[in-house]
Every structure is written in C-alpha cells, then in structure tokens.
C-alpha cells in the first residue's frame, strides 16, 4: 500500500481533457435526436405592464414553424419556488426581456424567423429602473443572499467614527455585471411517455430535477437531468433557468425532442446578473492605524419578482478587528431583471469597496497598506467571536509582498513615470467563506481490479471529475488510473451544485466516506469479487451540515501593477499576483487554473466590464459580447497564482477550502489601488474605463498646476 503514490495534490491531467481538445465533448444543445425541434423565446419589449394580445398568425405561416407557445396554450405548471421560472403562465411583464412566447420550429432558422414575426401588444405601465441610495422604496431586508442577517452592529460605530483620529468616508459604486459563460444556457428535452430526459447546461442537475418534478408534477424517478459537460456558469447556472422549463414545456406540447439554446443577447436579462451596489464605507482609526470603527453600508437593487440582496457588507464582518462596527444592506425593488449569483456574490463587490477604503486609510495614515492590514488582523472573527479554523491572510500578504517585490516601490502616488505612462502598484486582501453541503456518493470495486465512483457532481470546468477520482484513489490506496468516475447525471447518487466554492468539499467528503467504507469492506472480503463488484454508499447529511464552532474562511492577498496611459486614460494590468490560503490544494494544476481564472474575471470587473440599465427602456444597453467587454487575450498578461499550504483539521476529510471564487474577490480593489498609486487620484466607480481615468487625470492636472 505504501508503494502507491499519493494522488491528492498531484497535478493530474483533466479526465475529460481529450474530449474537449478534440471537439468531441458534447454540451447540452449538442444532443441530436430524431425529430428534434428548436425553440426560440420572444422577449418582452416593455419594462413593466401586461401582454394584451399575441398575434402568432404570421409566425405560424412561416415554413418550418410548428407552434407558438403563449400563456394561452402553454402547459399549466405548478407555481415554482423561483418566480423567474413561472414562464408563459400569465400576462404580467415584470421586466424588459421577460419571455412572453416561445416559437417552436423544425430548424434554427425557422425558429428565429418565427420569433421575429410574433406580434405582441402590451399595456405598458410606468416603470422605475433607477437605483439611488435615497430611493423611497429602499428597505432593510431580513436577510441578504447566503442567509446572512442584513444588519449587524457592535459597540457604538457612529460615535467611534466621529471621534476617530483618522477617518475615511467614501462611496463606491459597482455596476451591474454579467456572468457570460462561454456556453449560453441551453437545454435539450425529450419526453418518453411520462418520462422526461433533459440535457441541461447546469451547475447542479439534482436541483434541476427537483424543480422540474415540482413544476411538472412528476415523481423525481421519472426525470433524468444530464449535465455532462458544461461550458462555464460562474453562478448563472446554479439554479434552473428559463431554457430548461421552456424546453420541457415545448417537448411535452409537441411530443418531440426540443432544444432551447438561449441567444447570447438574452442572457443578461434572464440568467441573473450581479446587482449594482452603492456602497458607503467609513473607517475610523487611531493615529497608529488601529481601526476603532468600521461601517459598511450597501444599497442594492432587486427585481419585482423576487428579493435577491447582494451581500456586499458581509466580508466587513470577517476581515478586521474593530471594537465598533456596523454593516447594513438596503435593497430597492425595481422593474429590472432579477439579479442572482455571480462569482463571489457579496465578497467581490464588497471587498472592492472595503479594500479600497483600507488603501485610502493607509494613505491618510502614511502607512504601508500591507502593514495596515496586518496591524488590524483580528484574533477571532470580529462579529461572531468564533475562533478561526485557520487564517493565514498575514502570511499571504507577506509572501505576496516578497514575490511581488512590493517593498521596492516608491509609496508616493504618481511617483513612477515611463514616458506617457504612469505606473503604480496596489494590494488588497481577499476572503471567501467555507461552504459545504451534504452529498451522497457510491464507490464500487469491480472484479477487473478497477474502481467506479458515482456521484452527481458537475464539472463546469473546475476539474471536479479529476479531483474526486484523486480523492478516491488515495482513500482506496490504488493508482489513479484504476479509478473511473461518473458525474453529471441526476440518475447518479444525488449531490449539491457546483457553487459557492463548495463542490469539491461537499462531493469530496461523500466520495471520501464511500471510498473509506468500501476499503473497509474490501479488507474484510476474501476471495474474488461478485460479478457486479462490491459497493459502498455514503451520505454526509448530519456531518457536512453540522454546525461548526469555527469561523471557516479561505483568505488571500492580491498584488497588481498597472500602467496608465496619460494620453488615452487606458489602464493595462502589467502584473497580477495572488497568494491564497485555502486549506489543502487537491490538484495543483486545476487549482492554479481556477485561481488565475478568478483573477482574470476580477481584472475585467476592475477595468472593462460594466453594464448600464437603460432608463428609458429598462434593459441593459450592453447586451452582447461586442459591447460588454469581458477581458480578451491582450488584456491578460502576467498573472500568477501561488498558495500557502494550510493544515486545517476543522474542514472536511480532505482539509480543503473552496478555490473557485476567491481569485476574483480582491482583484478589482488591488487594481483600483494600483491605479490610484499610479495617477494620484482615487476613482471609486467601476470599471476604470478611459473616460473616467481621463477625467481623473485632467482633474489632477488642474490641481497640479
């Protein structure tokens, strides 16, 4: 046994890699079946009101158009928990882009033409899509996303702030942001009598099955949801989306397989987005830099359909020791599309504000921003008082500073000029909670000497297949190539979604346990295995979701160097370096890719990505990939991810924390702080596009003269 090399931690190659590089990996829309139809939704063109009539005659006359589903003829569905899925059930239009009809046709071309030919009449009502901090309908909800209390308060934050020796009081704005995974949301649905099979681009098909069962009034056993290959999600595929409901409805209505692949332009509206946040941060400190008051207040928006509150003030409860503190979320319901999860909801926008404010405080104090953070490191979680299971943010800052050669910089803003460029560097910390959910898994020893692990995990590009096989191989003490794994189907043992950076911990725990049980059974077993092998099944309910006395979070530190073109205001990131403390890293190769990927999305958040709510029409002005600028190759130069090994016994059997989201968390702040260091002006609204940077440079130029 000792001769088997340890699989966990090794940079094992992705198991599905060959299929992906040869183009044979099949995604949800790539499921040809005899008689398959294509369906295309028709989006509403008003922001609020009712549909008063839908004229489908012209569409139905088009060759290849089979039917048009509208609230008049669409199958009746049970009311879903998620109101965004109550599609074609009534005439209400809650926001621009809400689907009001579905054209089902023999071909993609006919579906597109048919959708263009549907005439919808509306009774439009006045709409309000404008978020302001003083909006009269703003309220404090019970909870923010993630189940966090909307408000927390310790001590007397206002008084402490008022009497602080050094103060920062600043407002930051993050615009709506879009997930835009490269694979648009898609579903192929097929009914066989009263049995429904769907291929769905999803981060978790067990939950999709439950939703379909409820809405279509079917027992779960009669539904199979397959998500074998998923082209990214970043939160937007964490819950069922309209494509799966529409495809199942259309397939039932027509009796034929139907694919609904959402056009890219529809995604911003119907698959969730990061809600905009208006954030006010107040930091009070004594003359030495110790925080005496920390106040983080967030105003965000939600739709009329459901309450989603971006939990941007939550990281302020974790990060810094301060005897007095308040965090608060307020939300305004508007006639806008429903916001939802986007990579590190809460942490990403919240830490942009908090870590920018910390940089401002360091400037006020004349302190190094790394040292200011270290000085304010708490002994226990500030809000809850719970001890940290492990917390190595200081080590991340120190290690990052060393690798980045942080101390070699001249800390004075606007001190480094290279021709037309102003160059600066910045730092920010990152945090992301450890989340873990109960899961089941099965491990089976086969007579041929191989092993089969079965679990409805979803590999959305994280490398889940590979890492789970590594975990099983180690527990079973067999070489990695002896372990086969099946994921991505709701027929497999149920498992939670790939979201909240919880996948590997949740799934891995049950794989670990099933493998351990199997190893024990094998140890007791003598003679050849029966024909179908020997199996063990684990369910971590009660363990994975047990209350922990520990405050469990991953931490990290980001360092960025930017060049700002003083002629154009263009900012380019020259170097981006992250150091993370995220428990035990289970696969160095795929982990690095996830960290770098998160940092890249953070680069986009800082510099290029921003969506605008059109006040007249209530939709997003940037609805395609030509106008919503996700970073391109040329934007992403030197990006490095490193980590500090943590040995934390309070997590799960693997000792891992989640890594999918922390890479984005502090990146925008680090880049924003670097821009401030470069140009000597603080910008507090993302993204830092040339128009804003030019204005800041002009402002500074004026003052300078």
């Amino acid at each position, binding site marked *: 046994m000792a001769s088997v090399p340890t699989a966990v931690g090794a940079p094992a190659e992705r198991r599905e890699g060959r299929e992906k*590089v040869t183009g*044979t990996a099949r*995604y949800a829309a790539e499921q040809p079946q005899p008689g398959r139809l294509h369906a295309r939704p028709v989006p509403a063109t008003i922001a609020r009101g009712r549909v008063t009539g839908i004229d489908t005659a012209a569409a139905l006359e088009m060759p290849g158009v089979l039917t048009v589903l509208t609230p008049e003829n669409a199958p009746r569905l049970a009311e879903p928990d998620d109101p965004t899925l109550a599609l074609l059930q009534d005439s209400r239009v809650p926001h621009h882009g809400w689907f009001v009809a579905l054209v089902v046709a023999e071909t993609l071309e006919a579906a597109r033409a048919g959708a263009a030919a549907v005439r919808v009449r509306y009774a439009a009502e006045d709409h309000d899509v404008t978020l302001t901090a003083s909006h009269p309908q703003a309220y404090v909800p019970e909870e923010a996303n993630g189940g966090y209390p909307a408000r927390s308060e310790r001590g007397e934050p206002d008084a402490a702030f008022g009497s602080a020796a050094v103060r920062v009081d600043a407002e930051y704005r993050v615009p709506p942001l879009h997930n835009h995974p490269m694979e648009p949301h898609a579903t192929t649905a097929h009914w066989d009598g009263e049995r429904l099979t769907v291929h769905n681009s999803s981060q978790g098909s067990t939950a999709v099955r439950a939703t379909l069962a409820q809405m279509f009034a079917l027992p779960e056993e009669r539904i199979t949801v397959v998500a074998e290959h998923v082209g990214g999600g970043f939160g937007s595929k964490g819950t069922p989306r309209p494509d799966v409901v529409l495809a199942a409805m259309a397939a039932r209505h027509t009796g034929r397989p139907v694919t609904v692949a959402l056009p890219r332009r529809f995604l911003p509206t119907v698959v969730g987005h990061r809600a905009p946040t208006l954030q006010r941060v107040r930091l009070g400190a004594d003359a030495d830099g110790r925080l005496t008051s920390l106040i983080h207040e967030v105003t965000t928006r939600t739709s009329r359909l459901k309450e989603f509150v971006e939990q941007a003030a939550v990281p302020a409860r974790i990060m810094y020791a301060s005897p007095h503190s308040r965090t608060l979320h307020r939300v305004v319901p508007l006639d806008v599309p429903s916001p939802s999860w986007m990579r590190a909801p809460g942490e990403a926008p919240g830490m942009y504000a908090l870590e920018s404010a910390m940089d401002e405080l360091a400037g006020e104090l004349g302190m190094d921003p790394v040292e200011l953070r270290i000085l304010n490191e708490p002994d226990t979680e500030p809000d809850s008082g719970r001890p940290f299971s492990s917390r190595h943010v200081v080590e991340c800052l120190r290690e990052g500073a060393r690798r980045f050669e942080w101390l070699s910089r001249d800390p004075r803003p606007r001190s480094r000029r290279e021709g037309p460029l102003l160059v600066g560097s910045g730092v920010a910390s990152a945090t992301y909670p450890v989340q873990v959910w109960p899961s089941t898994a099965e491990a089976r020893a086969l007579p041929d000497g191989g092993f089969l692990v079965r679990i409805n995990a979803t590999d959305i590009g994280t490398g889940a297949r590979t890492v789970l096989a590594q975990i099983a191989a180690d527990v079973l003490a067999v070489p990695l190539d002896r372990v086969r794994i099946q994921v991505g189907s709701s027929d497999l043992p149920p498992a939670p979604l790939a979201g909240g950076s919880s996948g590997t911990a949740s799934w891995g725990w049950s794989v670990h346990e099933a493998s351990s049980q199997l190893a024990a059974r094998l140890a007791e077993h003598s003679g050849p295995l029966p024909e179908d092998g020997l199996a063990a099944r684990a369910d971590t309910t009660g363990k994975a979701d047990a209350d922990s006395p520990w405050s469990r979070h991953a931490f990290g530190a980001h360092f960025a160097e930017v060049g700002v073109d003083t002629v154009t205001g263009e900012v380019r990131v020259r170097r981006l370096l992250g150091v993370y403390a995220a428990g035990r890293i289970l696969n160095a190769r795929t982990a690095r890719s996830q960290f770098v990927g998160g940092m890249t999305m953070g680069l986009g958040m800082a510099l290029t990505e921003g969506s605008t709510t059109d006040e007249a029409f209530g939709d997003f002005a940037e609805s395609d990939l030509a106008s919503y600028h996700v970073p391109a190759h040329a934007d992403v130069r030197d990006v490095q991810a490193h980590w500090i090994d943590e040995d934390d016994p309070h997590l799960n059997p693997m000792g891992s924390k989640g890594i999918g989201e922390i890479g984005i968390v502090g990146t925008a702040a680090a880049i924003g702080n670097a821009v401030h260091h470069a140009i000597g002006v603080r910008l507090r609204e993302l993204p830092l596009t040339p128009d804003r940077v030019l204005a800041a440079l002009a402002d500074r130029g004026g003052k300078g003269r």
Partner: protein
Amino acid sequence: MDSHQHQDEGPATRHRSETTLRVNGKPHTLTVDHRRVLLDVLREDLDLFGAKKGCDHGQCGACTVLVDGRRLNSCLLLAIALDGCEVTTVEGLSGDGEDLHPLQRAFLDRDAFQCGYCTPGQICSALGAIAEASAGHPSHVTDPTAPSGEPVPLDRDEIRERLSGNLCRCGAYPRIVDAVEDVIE
C-alpha cells in the same frame, strides 16, 4: 452567372440551394436553407459539434474554423456562399489516428482550458494565426518598422494580440499562450 434561383419550383425551394463543401477532407453536397451559416451546417447537418456557438455574431470566436486554410468565424459565413470550399474543424486536426495534433497535446499539457467551450475555437484560431505570422502578416503589436513581407516572430505579446478574437471566460489565457508557444518553438 451562377444562379441559385430555381424559377419553376415553388417559393419554398427558391430559398434552398445545393452547395458542396469539403469538411475535414470529406466532400458533402447539401441542399441548404440560404439562411444557414457554416456553423449550423457543421452542427445540425454534419453532427460536428467541435465548432461552438458562443454568440452567433462574430463576437467571441468559439466558432472559429479554417476555410481554405484561413481562420474564420463560421457563425457569419452563409453556407451557400462557400460552395467548393475546404473546411477544417477541430475534429479534422488529429486525423484518423489516435494521435493528437501537437497543439491539442500542448493544450492538455498546459491545462489551457477549463470548461472547454472556447477550446476548439482557440485551437483553430491559433493554427490560423501561426500560419498568418509565418506568411508575414503583421498584427497590431508588430513593430511598424519591422521589414514587411518577412515572417513575424511570435512572442507572447504577438500571440495574445492575434488570439484576442477568441474570448475565454474561464480565464485560461496565460496557459493558452504557453501552449501556443510550445508548438512554435
């Protein structure tokens, strides 16, 4: 004139015509809806799903294939206008055998992808870009004083610029550049 209008047939067939494409070396004669783009011919008619539909408007590069050796966005090419063209998709790169194309191998070695959806487009685009550079095509970042007509050496800046028409939301960019460097060295 090469008319594709068949006057004596009904209106339903006036908008369909025959076109012949060689795809990965195999000839295909298809009667296509004039509206059908190459991407949908590959995916709907030929069951070749390597070229991906990421945006359908030439804004992401996931559908990139090689047409007569040049990289193009297959989502914007009407199939009817490609009559007689030679198309190579990611499925055609490794030939009939088990051996991967060196660039496919390099993508695996470098972990140059995560979700894999942009990957076929990145690979086809990189092959096109390498050919363009060796044919002397400059890019936005090529030194304007570099001698025209000479092959352009592909450093990392050149690779990044030339592959910028291929978006990757997983952020595999640095690894993709590594992989491309591996095959040009």
